[in-house]
């Protein structure tokens, strides 16, 4: 499913003295079947943007097209929004705080039951989703609150995956996890992408952008400041967006200044760089 955003603006508390324009005339296309990262400093409009994608926030003006669905400022026109939310599902920051059920399997089945799936079938599909995220069977009947942070997050993601969305949006999916927990989540996201899901990740972690993303969108002051591939982004001047250049690219730039020719589009990890260095020697 393709996402197309036309002249989208969003103002919090519109027509009050406290109004804040979080998005200003954003037009954007998010490629289907790819991993897109949305970055930008705190308060740049990233979270507002993703919440308009499935109508959790309705645009102040402009519209969002997701496949055949349209999200507009007019409430009455957004009739199929419940279906849209199943196709484009959002995993929020710290989704483990939303776990509430008595057991892991019931928690994962909750969303499905909201879509009218019968209890037994919902539990069956929940088991499938839990298997997908690598949660062991021995956890199914246990309280989600007994799990570690990384496990809880995978259970929360399973609750979304159980809905089988075409587009999966994740807000800071690795925040607060240890390095191993982060890797497990990122591998999982890669797997979902290989299975055909379009992935959108909101992140501050430039290594996720460099190592995992096909496409990157930079938000700045509620506007789109950049759209393109990670290597184009990090090779350009990004100091004005208060984004960190990954250390790897800082080093690659030092090499370039010294006259070394490297194929930047193929450098995502230290190992990629080492491979190119070997070829030169």
């Amino acid at each position, binding site marked *: 499913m393709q996402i197309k955003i036309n002249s989208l603006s969003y103002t919090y508390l519109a027509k009050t003295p406290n109004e804040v324009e979080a998005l200003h005339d954003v037009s954007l296309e998010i490629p289907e079947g790819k991993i897109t990262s949305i970055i930008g400093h705190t308060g740049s409009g990233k979270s507002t943007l993703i919440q308009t994608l499935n109508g959790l926030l309705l645009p102040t003006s402009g519209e969002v097209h997701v496949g055949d669905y349209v999200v507009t400022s007019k409430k009455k026109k957004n009739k199929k929004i419940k279906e849209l939310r199943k196709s484009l599902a959002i995993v929020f920051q710290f989704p483990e705080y939303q776990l509430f059920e008595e057991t892991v399997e019931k928690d994962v089945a909750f969303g499905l039951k909201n879509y009218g799936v019968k209890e037994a079938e919902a539990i069956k599909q929940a088991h499938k989703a839990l298997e997908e995220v690598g949660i062991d069977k021995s956890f199914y009947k246990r309280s989600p609150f007994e799990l570690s942070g990384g496990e809880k997050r995978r259970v929360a993601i399973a609750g979304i995956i159980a809905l089988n969305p075409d587009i999966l949006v994740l807000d800071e999916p690795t925040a*607060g996890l240890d390095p191993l927990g982060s890797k497990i989540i990122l591998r999982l996201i890669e797997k979902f992408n290989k299975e055909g899901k379009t992935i959108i990740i909101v992140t501050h972690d430039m290594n996720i952008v460099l190592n995992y993303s096909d496409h990157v969108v930079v938000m700045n002051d509620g506007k789109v400041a950049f759209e393109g591939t990670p290597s184009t982004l990090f090779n350009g001047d990004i100091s004005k967006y208060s984004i*960190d250049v990954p250390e790897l690219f800082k080093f690659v730039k030092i090499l370039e200044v010294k006259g070394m020719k490297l194929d930047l589009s193929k450098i995502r990890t230290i190992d990629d760089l080492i491979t190119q260095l070997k070829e030169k020697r």
Partner: protein
Amino acid sequence: MKCVSIKNLTYAYIKDRPVIKDLSLDIEEGEYVSLVGHNGCGKSTLAKLLVGLLFANQGSIEICGLELNSKNINEIRKKVAIVFQNPDNQFIGATVEDDIAFSLENMCVPREEMLTLVPEYAKKVGMEQFLTKEPGYLSGGQKQRVAVADALIRNPEILILDEATSMLDPAGKQDILNLVKKMRSENPNLTIISITHDINEAYDSDRIVLMHEGVNVLSCTPVELFEKTDIISKYNLDLPFVIELKTKIKKLGIDVKESDSLETIGVKLCK
């Protein structure tokens, strides 16, 4: 001088399933210690024990020479400030200035002093423009900056950061880390205990304490830790970029030294 002295500490949320097991650790005054280890290894539990939010089942904690018990708890809480991971769980005031003033009110600081202290600390964390804003209008990173101001304004002897920067954007994170550095240079006696998964952040500390299943398995300087490749892989730790790069470039047969900057490595590679 010992600032924190932990002896044979054991704590269990559920009986017979201790998350801190017979842990002993000393921290010197003015030391900057990073606690690293997997989620669930007991780091945050230890932080809560240090501020008396939890009480140990066995063992003892001494803070600045005072034993942590129900009698001394108020005295100890004046010396220790903590910033938690989730900014939403620690915003108390109705506005930013109220929130920063809250602990001063508890300490009976005169109003005139508050009127200068609150804007001063708001400025330190870059929130001076937001003094009259309510938490609902702030982003997560902005709330966390307020939380850091709340902690610092009490002028604590020990500052505990429980993944305090994990939700901030790179610029916000750097602001906080710079601020912590500045606090340390202004007050070399300030002891910092930082719980973090960010290995580049831990790299800056005096000492890294690695925890695993409720025990501290290793305590050494960052440089010593990163040389122990067996430990790094056993406990799934990340390596700081510079260390990983140097190791891999050495394998190409290039002589790279510990002290080499990225620039120097570049020169050696381009020869």
